[in-house]
């Protein structure tokens, strides 16, 4: 089960992910991020506090926006990841490419 909610806080777009992301629903995540980017969002913060599991297909979604966002000057940050989920990002090495913060405040402060 996966549910994604987005809301705006100042200049930031918060993307709240609840549940598990696997091959069957990674498209949903892709669509959410794409629609934010298409609407001109410059700062996307992903709230991972309720993300229970992410499969390689889900990681592939984040990965596929890396270069595009770099070119467009869009910042994508993830915060409040469960240690186990963070481990998955870390094993793949994505923590070196995507900024991952323990809390929302730290993510906002970091420029």
């Amino acid at each position: 089960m996966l549910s994604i909610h987005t809301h705006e806080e100042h200049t930031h777009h918060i993307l709240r992910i609840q549940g598990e992301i696997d091959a069957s629903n990674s498209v949903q995540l892709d669509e959410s991020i794409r629609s934010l980017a298409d609407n001109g969002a410059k700062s996307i913060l992903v709230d991972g506090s309720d993300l229970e599991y992410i499969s390689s297909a889900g990681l592939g979604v984040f990965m596929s926006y890396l270069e595009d966002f770099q070119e467009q000057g869009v910042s994508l940050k993830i915060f409040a990841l469960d240690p186990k989920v963070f481990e998955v990002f870390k094993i793949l090495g994505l923590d070196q490419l995507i900024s991952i913060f323990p809390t929302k405040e730290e993510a906002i402060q970091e420029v």
Partner: protein
Amino acid sequence: MIKLPSIHIGKLSFLLAILVWLALLFVDLTRLFGAINDLNSGIAPEFTWILEILFFITVYGFYNYAINKDARNDFLSLIWRAASTGMFASAIFLLVQLFYILLGESRLADEPFLRNFFYHVHFALVTIFLISSAILWKNLILYQKSKQVVKQWQTYEFALLLAMFFIFFNKNTFDYSFIFGLVILTGLGIVLSGNLKWIPYLTFKEKWKSLLFLFFILLSGSYLFYQTSQFSNAQQTYPINLLDNLFLISLFLFILIYALFSFLVTLFNLPTSSVFEQKLTEAINFQRLSQSIQPEESEEQVLDILIDSCMSAAYADAAWMEMHRLETGTELIQERWINEETRNELSEKISGMKAASQWETETKPDNLSPLALRLDHPKFESILIIPLVVNKSVIGRLVLCKEVKDGFNKEMINIISTFTRQASIAVENHRLLNQAIQNERYQEELKIAQRVQKSLLPVKLDHNESFEICAYSNAADEVGGDYYDTFQLDENRFVLIIGDVSGKGTSAAFHMSQMKGIFQSLIQLDLGASEFMNRANSALSRCLERNHFITASIFIIDTSNHTFLHARAGHVPTLMWEKSKNKADFLGVDGLGLGILRNMQYEKHVEEKVFSFESGDILLLFTDGIVEAKNQKSQQFGFERVRSLVEVYHHLSPREIQTKLIDSLHDFVEGDGMIDDDYSLMVVKFN
């Protein structure tokens, strides 16, 4: 061995019949000679009677054989056979009479021998006519066999057999016992004559023909009967009475009664014949519809039969059929006796009607029934709209048009509904069948893919006496994205690789084969571990889809100095059991997955390290399918379980450790099929 000639029953009984008749003639003429010359020939009448019975039986034998042998026993040819026999017998007899008229008062006309000869001819012809007709009638009566009818017929046959021998009992006198027997046999004959079920199956034209034939049978039968009674009246000329036989007389009555019944019933069936024919056509159409489910036939053929069947069932003057297609909207499939202009006029009128629009918007297609409408159109005054429902959705409609008002009655609508349902089932089955065939083919293709992919993994793993190695891989679907391989660089140096494509199934399998191609080429260049990953990243970046990546680990083992060089590209860390420390740990090397950074930046994100090993140390390479496997409570197998298993079983051989790991993984998820990702592992134990 004496070879017995096969006995031909037909010919044999035919021959016997002739011989018996000749014997009969001879006996009777001898007796006549004796009577004329006042000599006692000493031939008892019983002798004649026995020959007579023999003659009956042989004739029966012949016809029973000849008629049943003829496979082409349609009703008309049966009746025609009886009619022709009757007419032939009558014609012969007429010729004989003509002959006597021509003779006039000459001496020959009174010649008793000649008269007796003709008497015997008449007897033979009458017998043949009666027995052959009786067998033909039997075929007609038993057309629709039921146990009861068969019993009735057998009773009648038995009674006839008794009647043959009745002559011994009453000595050929006309007494009450004769009348009694005659009444019983005639009664049985009348009961049997009620079986006329063959008549409705005749077409209108065949009925007329059969009327004509039956008329001939009645005519010739009556004539022969009349002649027979003439002979009885002139008994003094003939020394023996052959014709006043209970068997013959009752058979005579039976033949005539059945012919009369058939004649009358056929006559009265004529007006309703078209209804029966219509029903028969409907039944045949129904059969055609249900048979047209062959995969090689198209839906159009089924619908073609449907429209024709419905039109003939409703006597429709015109019809057309439309199908709803997702891509092209409504499409015309068939039209009959109607042009596009009229069709459009009618369509407009239909859509303008309230009942029709309500009908169109019905939400449950199963509830839809044919809709009969009255139309205000110069040519067609009533129409019937029939929905074509396949798999609970309306796939189209059939419209029947008639030039008369209220042209569709309840029976027509019922039969048309049945036709349509049958056709819909045929179409549905046809679609399902094609789908099943398609699926079958995909399954076959997948099996081939599975076989090909299996062959991409090495059967023999390169190693020397310094270490033992084994590996295992299992795909969640038919094919998967996990990969492992080994390569011997020189006498002491070996490369081990394990890789995992993101995602699973067919797309992962294709990427896996690309990975193998790239790894196999790079491996031979004898590169360093991080350089290997650099080049692999650059090559894979060119062929991976944007949201796909590959994780891999590489080990370059040098058995001469007991070290290995290791790099990890985003792959799950490798577990190493160190005998000296008596514990297992995951090797800490940083590295980014392949295909994530598709430029030169990648080399900053991958590192390599050298590790040394000792005898008894174990390396466990695996893919994330193992640690991410979940049980019913949604718990993951996890790294710690892997670690503790290796710590417990470190003393076993690589093969045994592998088995222990896979078994406990299966125990954890409760069943092999429960792991929804590809998983692989490779165990190395240094000696």
